[in-house]
């Protein structure tokens, strides 16, 4: 199914799909020559072109270097729409609304933790429900409480004693997307979410204990509180069943709305409504509610990460120093102010498998990072490494302040299972010093390293193109998988 899309090389890292047919703008893909042959194998370039046909799109239909075939929008896709004629599309956010990543630092050195890593992984695994349909038996939320969670986001968790006020200052949008309206979230969605707050879920979600392997920028790393051989923790999860249901509910609304407003769709999954329409506004308010649920989810998990460390290492919070560096959303649509054709303008930026990467000095970059730029967290696969980057001015002017979000799969799950067949992946990783514990063998096999692009190649493109800047590389020691 190789795509026949026309592509023109702009420079070493940029490729353009010229505007053609029903496209309202060009496509712009960030990739290396080597990555491109793989990208051409699937339909992701066609998806970039499809997004370019939607009304009110500003700038190019963008794709980050971890682009791969999604449904509707490509994964790694970024598109901004003006508030007058532009649209909002639930498919441009995805089912896992506010799937995201947070990074914690510690006062601990690798040598202190490495001998205890197995115990630590076991503690994390028993304290944080994970796997297929994971739920919390100890925490079932009533409808009024769920509403509060969806309004307040991470702030709700902090109010209930799960974390500190200091945490909130280190989360995108302070852990609360404004304009959330829980009344617009269906009963079905709340049914799914009521015992899933504080759960990891399955698939590519994980909690990873790792250490700083390499530092590329001493000054910025210092400002982020990172040092070599330091123990770090990454949490990757989203809004669980609640978010999936909100997406599904509003795709149904948007299928009707697209017809009502006469929006021509090259793919039903791209269904959307004008940002100015009641349907568009309702989706944004419901999406914000689900996004806030996800922020609260990662905040609760962080609390249990801290508890697990305290249990195993018998140390207090002050000595552990498990502080939040940052928390980013990589499946989201946000109303932001950007410079469009030289004019300041509010647009709705869809980031589907893409991370916000705001530069130093931007009002939405948190106070602690005004000089460094907003931290960008790029998890890799469980066998290799993850990256910390910071946002740049180049990203702000070229990609609506966006960059890549991860490695991106290279192998289908079938191929991954085939590759893992007859091997003991858990034992292989243990031999490399990485302890992995998962609810099911299938998830671990599907998530083998070889199934992913080398995240370093993705990060090199983002860094090379200047849409973010490398700060540090982290190596896993212990991982819990859904």
């Amino acid at each position, binding site marked *: 199914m190789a795509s026949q899309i026309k592509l023109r090389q702009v420079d070493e890292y940029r490729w353009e799909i010229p505007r053609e047919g029903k496209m309202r703008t060009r496509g712009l893909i960030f990739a290396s020559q080597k990555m491109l042959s793989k990208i051409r194998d*699937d339909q992701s370039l066609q998806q970039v072109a499809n997004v370019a046909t939607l009304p009110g799109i500003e700038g190019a239909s963008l794709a980050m270097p971890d682009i*791969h*075939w*999604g*449904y*509707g929008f490509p*994964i790694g896709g970024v598109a901004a729409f003006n508030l007058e004629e532009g649209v909002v599309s639930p*498919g441009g956010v*995805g*089912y*896992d609304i506010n799937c995201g990543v947070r990074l914690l630092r510690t006062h601990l050195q690798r040598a202190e933790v490495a001998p205890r890593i197995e115990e630590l992984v076991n503690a994390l695994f028993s304290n944080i429900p994970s*796997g*297929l*349909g994971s*739920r919390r038996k100890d925490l079932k939320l009533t409808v009024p409480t769920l509403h509060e969670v969806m309004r307040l986001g991470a702030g709700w968790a902090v109010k209930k004693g799960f974390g500190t006020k200091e945490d909130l200052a280190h989360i995108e949008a302070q852990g609360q997307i404004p304009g959330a309206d829980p009344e617009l979230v269906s009963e*079905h969605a709340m*049914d*799914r979410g009521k015992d*899933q707050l504080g759960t990891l*879920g*399955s*698939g590519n979600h994980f909690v990873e204990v790792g250490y700083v392997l390499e530092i590329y920028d001493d000054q910025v790393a210092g400002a982020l509180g990172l040092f070599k051989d330091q123990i770090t923790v990454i949490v990757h999860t989203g809004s669980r*069943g609640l978010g*999936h*249901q909100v*997406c*599904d509910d509003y*795709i*149904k609304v948007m*299928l*009707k709305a697209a017809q009502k407003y006469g929006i021509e769709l090259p*793919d*039903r*999954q791209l*269904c959307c409504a004008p940002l100015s329409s009641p349907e568009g506004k309702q989706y944004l308010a419901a999406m914000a509610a689900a996004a806030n649920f996800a922020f609260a989810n990662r905040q609760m998990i962080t609390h249990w990460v801290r508890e697990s460390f305290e249990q195993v290492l018998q140390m207090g919070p002050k000595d552990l120093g498990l502080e939040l560096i940052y928390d980013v959303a990589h499946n989201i649509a946000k109303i932001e102010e950007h410079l469009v054709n030289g004019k300041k303008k509010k647009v709705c930026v869809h980031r589907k498998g893409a991370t916000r990467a705001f530069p130093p000095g931007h009002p939405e970059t948190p106070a602690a990072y005004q000089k460094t730029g907003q931290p960008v967290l790029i998890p890799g696969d469980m066998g290799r490494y993850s990256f910390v980057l910071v946002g740049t001015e180049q990203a702000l002017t070229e990609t609506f302040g966006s960059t890549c979000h991860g490695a*991106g*799969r*290279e*192998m*289908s*799950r*079938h*191929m991954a299972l085939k590759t893992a067949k007859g091997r003991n992946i858990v034992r292989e990783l243990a031999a490399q010093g990485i302890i992995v514990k998962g*609810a*099911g063998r*299938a*998830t671990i096999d*599907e998530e083998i390293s070889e199934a992913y692009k080398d995240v370093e190649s993705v990060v090199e493109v983002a860094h090379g193109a200047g849409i973010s800047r490398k700060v540090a590389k982290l190596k896993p020691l212990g991982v819990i998988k*859904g």
Partner: protein
Amino acid sequence: MTAAFRGPRKAKYRQLSHTADLGLRIWGSTPEELFENAGEALTAVLTDRRRLRLRHIEEITVEAPDLEALLVAWLNHLLYLYDVDAFLGREFKVQGLSPQHLKALARGETYDPQRHESKTAVKAATYHHLEIANLNGGWQATVILDL
């Protein structure tokens, strides 16, 4: 039944490779059978269907603007039941089907991690490349799952 396109073994469904996600190709001699087989295909992604016992029946009604959207609504409703009650269906029986309306029974049991295998988690059935076709007197559907 003359649905030769399903191959000699009359498969009910097949999983299709998709880089990040998973496609399902489902067959049935009637639209009713197509929906029943789709239920089985979805359960088979989540767990080993054969280990589920027939201990509980769920009555399900879903509505959608057309037959293709109805298939997505059906699969997403089954995922909803799984999230809420950990219910997984092993067998499905369509009791009434029109392009906008489906009434069906699902027989199965509550997922128990001790007893049942945890395979691949599914976030949702999507509308991307969604297709139902009437071929050679049989029915074929393609649906892509977001994992």
